[in-house]
């Protein structure tokens, strides 16, 4: 095709897409039969509008009923508070405590708009939304991508279910218009999730401004996530790593050992604030708090999730199972009651504040919007016809390099641990999961200066200067080596019955030589293990990490009876039996088979 034909094709495609959304279902938009669902609606729709495969329970259990009742009570208080919004009568403390308890769902639309100050943006920019839509209609270069994402966003939700339904129309309009308004970001996959949630609680124009505020208000600053090269993502991942290194060193090591970089499991946490990663009801609670307190909540929540599920995660011994647990299992069932999760989130925030880790390092210049909003620049021909330049921008090149280095490090970490397994070639193997004296957040590194931890930080820094020369490598090697030597400490004091503390300095030297060498040794063969492993769990101190407890709020009460002191639990775990080959994230429950009372 020549240039003209390509242009013509692009124009026709855009025209066709916009027309379909304009017409909507009833206006006669052409709908392929497969695009439309045909499922039973009524008894499978939950209170938020999501449709489930199974019938929901016909009767609400007592616990649910009680919660709904409390929500009705809260509603009254909220209505009063909303009347006095902005007056001294509504103290920040009161607002804080109420938001953390959860905004009543019926008032979410109003409260979210207030928290985001949508009204003000909208009023001071009257007419802009319509303008942007008109521009998009004529010039949008993102319509194809947005269309294909609208077609896949929240299709199990009542309002997004039908092709070209009103919500789908709105989602398409908001996203195409916003891509014109904030041309630096345009449209990035992920934004359909954000806008999709906003539209469940707002009308079209409000959602547009809410989206803009989420991207550009420094409190949320999501612009930096979606911009090419994802500058904010690298900064926040570095911060996340720092938090893990300090508060969950054992888990961090476990992840490293399994070659699991945070980038591999946490993108939806950061990009869409936990949408599709935790159940929707919990997600809304986190959004309430996020809208109130801003971006720091994301890293605090990320930490909270890992802390709460640390025991489960330590028991999973490959990347497959870990990623599946974090991404799939926890979305289906978080295992812990929402209120308890939020209480723990608050606790995490306190911990992080004390350790001066609540606030990440300030944003780099490239994260902040640099182009004025709503100023139209005609797209280049390549963009219009959808030809890829296939070249990275400077920022993307840096990100790309960073990613390559990070994946090398992850691999090296994995192999380093391999070496360790060879050395301690006996049944102790995975210290973390076998003989473990669990402490709540295995915090043994509080003596350490966390500024020096976290290899990614140094990577991020180097990527900014974009010098991938040898001096960069040596910095990384150094920081790695440093980390390793610190790990030795944590191992000594951490847990480790029998032999595990022999890792450490020896490996740290090998690894630092190997970090960037092109050759790594063949993976050592995994040792064979006798299938019948006897594991002894000796509870060490009362947990303050809640264990998965079926939906009741009585965690505090349930723990003591589960973990009575002076009892030795003998658990015969068949994880290591030569089965199951395929586990779709089905982790086995913690079952205590025998109990010996030593009293």
């Amino acid at each position, binding site marked *: 095709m020549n240039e003209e034909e390509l242009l013509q094709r692009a124009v026709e495609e855009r025209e066709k897409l916009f027309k379909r959304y304009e017409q909507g279902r009833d206006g006669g938009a052409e709908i392929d039969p497969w695009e439309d669902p045909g499922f039973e609606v009524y008894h499978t729709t939950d209170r938020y509008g999501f449709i489930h495969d199974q019938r929901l329970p016909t009767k609400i259990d007592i616990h649910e009923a009680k919660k709904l009742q409390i929500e009705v009570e809260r509603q009254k208080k909220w209505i009063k508070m909303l009347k006095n919004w902005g007056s001294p009568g509504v103290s920040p403390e009161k607002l804080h405590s109420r938001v953390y308890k959860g905004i009543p769902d019926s008032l979410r639309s109003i409260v979210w708009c207030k928290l985001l100050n949508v009204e003000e943006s909208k009023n001071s920019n009257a007419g802009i939304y319509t303008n942007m839509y008109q521009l998009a209609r004529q010039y949008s270069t993102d319509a194809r991508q947005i269309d294909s994402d609208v077609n*896949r966003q929240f299709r199990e939700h009542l309002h997004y279910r039908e092709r070209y339904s009103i919500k789908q129309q709105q989602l398409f309009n908001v996203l195409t218009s916003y891509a014109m308004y904030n041309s630096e970001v345009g449209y990035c*996959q992920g934004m359909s999730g954000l806008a999709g949630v906003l539209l469940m609680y707002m009308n079209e124009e409000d959602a547009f401004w809410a989206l803009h505020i989420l991207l550009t208000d420094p409190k949320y600053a999501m612009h930096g996530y979606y911009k090419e090269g994802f500058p904010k993502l690298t900064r926040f991942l570095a911060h996340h790593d720092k938090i893990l290194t300090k508060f969950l060193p054992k888990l961090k090591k476990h992840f490293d050992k*399994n070659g699991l970089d945070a980038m591999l499991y946490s993108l939806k946490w950061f*990009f869409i604030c936990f949408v599709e990663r935790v159940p929707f009801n919990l997600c809304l609670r986190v959004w309430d708090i996020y809208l109130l307190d801003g971006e720091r909540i994301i890293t605090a929540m990320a930490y909270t999730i890992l802390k709460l599920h640390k025991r489960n995660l330590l028991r999973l011994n490959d990347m*497959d199972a870990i990623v599946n647990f974090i991404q799939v299992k926890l979305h289906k069932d978080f295992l812990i009651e929402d209120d308890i999760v939020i209480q723990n989130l608050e606790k995490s925030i306190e911990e992080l504040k004390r350790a001066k880790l609540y606030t990440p390092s300030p944003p780099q210049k490239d994260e902040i919007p640099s182009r004025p909003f709503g100023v139209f620049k005609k797209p280049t021909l390549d963009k219009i016809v959808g030809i890829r330049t296939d070249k990275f921008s400077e920022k993307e090149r840096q990100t*790309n390099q960073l*990613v390559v280095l990070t994946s090398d490090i992850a691999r090296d970490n994995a192999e380093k641990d391999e070496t360790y397994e060879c050395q301690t070639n006996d049944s102790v193997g995975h210290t973390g999961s076998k003989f473990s004296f669990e402490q709540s957040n295995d915090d043994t590194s509080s003596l350490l200066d966390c500024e020096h931890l976290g290899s990614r930080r140094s990577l991020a820094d180097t990527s900014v200067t974009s010098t991938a020369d040898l001096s960069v490598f040596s910095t990384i090697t150094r920081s790695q080596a440093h980390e390793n030597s610190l790990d030795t400490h944590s191992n000594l004091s951490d847990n480790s019955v029998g032999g595990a503390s022999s890792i450490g300095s020896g490996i740290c030297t090998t690894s630092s030589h190997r970090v960037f060498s092109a050759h790594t040794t063949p993976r050592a*063969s995994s040792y064979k293990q006798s299938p019948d492993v006897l594991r002894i769990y000796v509870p060490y101190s009362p947990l303050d990490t809640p264990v998965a407890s079926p939906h009741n709020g009585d965690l505090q009460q349930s723990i003591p009876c589960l973990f009575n002191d002076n009892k030795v639990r003998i658990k015969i775990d068949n994880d290591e039996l030569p*089965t199951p*080959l395929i586990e779709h994230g089905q982790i086995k429950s913690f079952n205590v088979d025998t109990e010996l009372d030593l009293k």
Partner: protein
Amino acid sequence: MEHTEPHSTEPEMANRQGAAQRPNGAQGKICQFKLVLLGESAVGKSSLVLRFVKGQFHEYQESTIGAAFLTQTVCLDDTTVKFEIWDTAGQERYHSLAPMYYRGAQAAIVVYDITNQDTFGRAKTWVKELQRQASPTIVIALAGNKQDLANKRMVEYEEAQTYAEENGLLFMETSAKTALNVNDIFLAIAKKLPKYDQNQGQSGQGQGRRLAEGDQGAKTPGNCCK
């Protein structure tokens, strides 16, 4: 909205629910491979993986952000092959993150949509990038997906096949929707990959190295069929 395909080819797939089907008691070989899917957004990468791993098709497969990770195990003669699959996001914006997923991969499936010529062009640039940046011995397969929409075809079978031959790629037209060639393409890859038994300990430098490279899950004992 899920179809479990009646005529899925279903070759010697390992049992989905539980224990692997292994030749009775025989100590077969076990191999683990890292495989990455690349290609333009909405060509059906996630759908192919879902079909292969769970035997399902969702019309409204959610769009991928970053990447998703899944595994599936197949049995090939006396060898059990476990695929660790990275399904990546197709939007160009995410391109800079791709090496995170394809580095150390032993196999890649580059997917395009047969009803869209642009996606074929994009597939070619992915192949080039892999040939330049990925492991030199990576096995690359090209999948022309959405074969069920052949009446809207924009990319001719012969064109793609010629391209694949010239570049030493495996090639099949697939449909995640009808399950056509989905298992087959994975199996063809499995057959082409050098098998090295993880039960037997160290191997020679050449192939063993490659296994060691991307083999992220096997380092923990007891997670695979032993």
